């Protein structure tokens, strides 16, 4: 029984490692594609297209994830080979490769989270409020009141009616002499 579980552990470690590597390989190439497809004339630095923002951070994080997954998968496979009686002789220094696992555990999700937050910041600047459809799809009933305000986007909508009385955006953003006459 124990032997079977130990073997299952090795197999699952191998499969999980390579699975994680595939996930982050896909993410890496998608991030690279985002950077590449919009990098020349439509670059964020030139034209203000911010869709590429954060893609480089995601590429770094995904690379760490691929390294972590490959090392995990290979170590699982090595354990399987050793367990089956194979004679594996590795140099001492090769153990440094296992550092990819702790590094990847921290760096991969950290950088990917950072890149995702950047994408959220881009998504929240939705000037024509197309994202109202997203709020509607999410089942919010409060969106109708707030959609249309210049300072809000649809993602703010469910919260805006509650926040409005306590939130003075115009007076903070304009110099005191330039207030609208109607206010």
């Amino acid at each position, binding site marked *: 029984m124990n032997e079977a579980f130990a073997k299952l552990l090795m197999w699952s470690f191998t499969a999980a490692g390579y699975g994680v590597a595939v996930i982050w390989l896909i993410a890496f190439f998608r991030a690279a594609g985002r950077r590449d497809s919009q990098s020349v004339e439509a670059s964020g630095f030139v034209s*203000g297209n911010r*869709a590429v923002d954060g893609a480089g951070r995601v590429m770094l994080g995904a690379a760490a994830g691929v390294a972590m997954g490959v090392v995990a998968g290979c170590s699982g496979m090595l354990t399987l080979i050793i367990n089956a009686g194979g004679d594996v002789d590795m140099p001492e220094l090769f153990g440094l490769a296992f550092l990819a696992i702790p590094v990847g555990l921290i760096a991969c999700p950290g950088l990917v989270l950072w890149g995702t937050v950047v994408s959220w910041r881009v998504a*929240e600047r939705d*000037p024509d409020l197309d994202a109202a459809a997203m709020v509607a799809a999410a089942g919010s009933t409060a969106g109708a009141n707030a959609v249309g305000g210049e300072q809000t986007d649809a993602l703010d909508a469910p919260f805006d009616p509650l926040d409005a009385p306590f939130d003075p955006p115009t007076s903070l953003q304009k110099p005191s002499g330039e207030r609208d006459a109607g206010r």
Partner: protein
Amino acid sequence: MFFGGAELLFVGFMLLYGLNWIGLVLFTGAMGLRRRRWGTPGGGWMLVSAALYGAVGLGLVMLIPLGVIAGPGNAAWVESVALASVVVLIAVWVGSNAALAKALFTAWRAADEAVKSQGSPGVGA
């Protein structure tokens, strides 16, 4: 391998791992509250991922006493439970990575929508 002599390193590393993910959960949650972004595209997947990571970290930390107890000469079923738990935790680890990738792709799609809705790429931003 799992019941070897490197428990101290294992404990330290797994505590770090658990703390990292507790920190991530707090960070994500605080960010959502601060920016009122519970409707953030992919934010739910992000929280799912953080919770799964936290579960893996916590589960591994909780396995350590079991691993220390289940030294040589202990009941076979204890070791079986420990090994089976690690298998489950490894599967959860893959799931948390998949949820994180899903959150990322959802956020990218929303960012593309936002940029597209600005008409020409030079407007806004």
